């Protein structure tokens, strides 16, 4: 072997060694490590951990780390899978569900979970008239024939039943609230989840620590998780860069590009079920005209909104259902930006010469103000003069819900892996309790389709019903479908296994620090 050959051999040897070392490092970094603490910073503090009565995401996503349901949502947000139950058998024409409980599941106090706990938890949840009890309305009764079996008898066939059972409100807690008064129990709840209650400073932070009895062996990896309340978005970003926090929840859209190029920071946009709408109140006569609503829907320049408000991080909405919801129909015919068509619709309406309309905008809500400007310019082209009515967000919220508005912005995120929750709320003027998303939209055909879909357990037939429903609703343009936007999380590059589901929740038992 001459010197040149030896040199070549050495170079090859070094390259192979380097490759092996890199591969070894990569494989080591992919192996979850146990230990460490993670701190989230977010714009809102948790309100309550009473999972049966709380509607605030900042509370719900934390409660889910402690209290788990029988079934849970799959990562794509479209189905459910067994969680504290291992299987379910459906009988009696779809009116009886028999769940087999997962063996070896314990609460964080060390006591085994039994069917009595399950019966108690869901009986308690469905009693809550101010809370989420309405989603359990189909349940007639629950029995616990043996410690590992729970039977649900329904009043009628109910297609969304398993999705409803996977709702956080139906998470399992110890029977009789572990011997405490109800309100006291929810100040430091106990469950089977990966984390258990540690401490809370109201208005400042909440800390959970590892549940030593967690049923998934070896998990969770983290010792503890803290959620801090940091209202200023700039401060949250600086704290992430300064490693004082590991997760910045919902950084503003205008900082995404910068965070994507910040060393040590992973900026991820998780697909979400968030859908933003323009509410059109049909109590205002021009907006009761289908042609006017179609004209407005055609006049919304969704791309301009996405570009200027979301900085390109969104997609135009083409149905009132988001793509991450089962039975979403991408071809439902949701109206898109086309000024010529908008003018044609206006010409066919009872208001061919246009009219004046007021748009409710949250004071200080920059996103709404920017969207309002774009909308104002577009609608002017079809003869609709928009004036803004600014209100602080709490008042704006109340006025929308009381239908004391003409045009307003709103949004929705899903809580279950089934369209029923949103469909009922949005189109069932009487049954949904919200006057069809506060718009007074009333199409009996759509309402009837929604009722049929609730009772149809055949997935194929259900899909057909929801397809038709979405098509009619899109044609009626009862809401202006604006855009679909992602959940935004900036987090330390040392944090692995962090994944946000389309419903907004996350399974922190899989997260670890490397």
């Amino acid at each position, binding site marked *: 072997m001459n010197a040149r050959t030896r040199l070549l051999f050495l170079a090859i040897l070094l390259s192979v060694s380097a490759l092996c070392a890199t591969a070894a490092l990569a494989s080591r970094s992919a192996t979850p490590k146990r230990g460490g603490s993670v701190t989230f*910073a977010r714009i809102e*503090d948790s*309100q*309550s951990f009473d999972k049966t009565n709380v*509607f*605030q995401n900042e509370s719900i996503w934390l409660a889910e780390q402690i209290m788990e349901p029988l079934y849970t949502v799959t990562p794509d947000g479209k189905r459910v899978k067994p969680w504290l139950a291992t299987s379910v058998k459906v009988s009696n024409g779809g009116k009886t569900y028999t769940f087999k409980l997962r063996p070896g599941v314990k609460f964080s106090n060390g006591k085994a979970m039994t069917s009595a706990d399950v019966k108690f938890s869901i009986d308690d949840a469905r009693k809550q*008239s*101010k809370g989420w009890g309405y989603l359990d309305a189909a349940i007639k009764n629950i029995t616990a024939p043996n410690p590992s079996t729970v039977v649900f008898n329904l009043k009628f066939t109910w297609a969304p039943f398993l999705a409803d059972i996977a709702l956080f409100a139906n998470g399992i807690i110890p029977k009789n609230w572990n011997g405490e008064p109800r*309100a006291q129990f929810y100040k430091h709840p106990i469950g089977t989840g990966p984390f258990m209650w540690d401490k809370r*400073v*109201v*208005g*400042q932070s909440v800390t959970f620590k590892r549940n030593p009895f967690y049923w998934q062996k070896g998990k969770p990896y983290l010792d503890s998780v803290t959620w*801090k*309340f*940091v*209202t*200023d978005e*700039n*401060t949250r970003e*600086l*704290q992430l*860069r*300064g490693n*004082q926090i590991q997760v910045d929840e919902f950084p503003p859209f205008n900082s995404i590009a910068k965070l994507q190029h910040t060393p040590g920071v992973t900026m991820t946009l998780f697909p979400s079920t968030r859908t933003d709408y323009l509410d059109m109140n049909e109590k205002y006569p021009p907006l009761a005209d289908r042609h006017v609503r179609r004209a407005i829907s055609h006049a919304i320049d969704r791309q301009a909104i996405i570009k200027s408000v979301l900085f390109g991080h969104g997609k135009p909405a083409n149905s009132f259902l988001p793509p991450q919801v089962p039975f979403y129909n991408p071809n439902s015919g949701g109206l898109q930006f086309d000024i010529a068509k908008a003018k044609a619709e206006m010409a066919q309406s009872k208001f061919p010469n246009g009219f004046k309309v007021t748009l409710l905008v949250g004071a200080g809500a920059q996103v709404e103000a920017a969207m309002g400007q774009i909308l104002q310019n577009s609608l002017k082209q079809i003869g609709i003069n928009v004036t803004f009515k600014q*209100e*602080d*967000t*709490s*008042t704006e*919220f*109340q*006025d929308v*819900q009381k239908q004391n508005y003409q045009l307003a912005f*709103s*949004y*929705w995120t899903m809580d279950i892996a089934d369209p029923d929750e949103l469909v009922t*709320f949005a189109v069932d003027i009487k049954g949904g*309790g*919200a006057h069809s998303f506060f718009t007074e939209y009333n199409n009996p055909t759509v309402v009837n389709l929604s009722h049929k879909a609730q009772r149809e357990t055949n997935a194929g037939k259900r899909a057909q019903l929801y397809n038709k429903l979405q098509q009619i609703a899109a044609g009626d343009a009862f809401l202006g479908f604006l855009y679909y936007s992602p959940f935004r999380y900036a987090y330390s590059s040392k944090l692995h296994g962090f994944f946000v589901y389309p419903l907004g929740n996350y399974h922190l038992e899989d997260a670890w620090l490397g």
Partner: protein
Amino acid sequence: MSLGAYVGRRLLHLVPIALGVTILCFFLIHLVPGDPARTILGNQATDQRVALLRHQWGLDRPLPVQYGKFMGRVVHGDLGTSLFYGVSAGRLVLQRLPVTLWLIGFGALLSVLIAVPLAVIAATHRDRLPDHVVRAVPLVGLGFPPFWVGIVLLLVFGLHLGRGFPVGGYGNGFTGHLHSMFLPALTVAFGISPILVRSLRASLLEVLESDYVVTARSKGLPERRVLGRHALRNAVISTVSVLGVNIGYLVGGTLVIEQVYALPGVGQLMINSINQRDFPIVQGVTLVFSVMVVLVYLLTDVAHALLDPRVRFE
């Protein structure tokens, strides 16, 4: 009138002031549209569920009845229960109070520590370069909004320059608080010290030309002693009033600084509670703020009298 009697009388004035503040605050916050039940129940709220929650909180009763109940609790030292958190409003306010007091106290101290030497330099170098610099540069601080100053200080001292200070937060223990509160207090000082500098400089210039200072100098007293013992003590009297007014203003104005530095103070609690229409907390914070402002002004008057024996308590 003795000092004790004067303080006692001023404290008695607190009662009608606090009562007036509670009446104003109670009816104003209820006049503003916005419903805490709808805020808390979110966009799934139905009229029925909203009505149930309003009834549970007693918000469906006439306003005078609600006010009567509120005052009934206040005289027993109970500010009610937070609608958002479901815990004692008084406890929440008291938990937050030390943070705000730290911010105000430390901010005032830093303002004085910055203002006094600068004012002395300016007054003793009248119309020369140091005077011009001292008069001009701090004014820049007044021109910058506190949130901007806060972010710049965080960027410079929290992230760069060796990361000497934490990026927000209150810290733990006395030294932790001292460390964490330095930048927020400096931000407060940025806003107050220019006013103090100008006030103290003007007073010093006036005092330095007075007869007793000329006499002190002619006696051969060193300039440091003339300044410290004769001029500064008399000049500082009007500045104490200016400081008192600014601290009074700060009591309600720390909000922005608390937001930027993620300080869990009363101001932050107040703004969140207004957004959530958490009436008991808004009322509680307003009551505490009004008492604090009255106390600050009282302390200012007492300090004024102690510094100037000519002032009589009347």
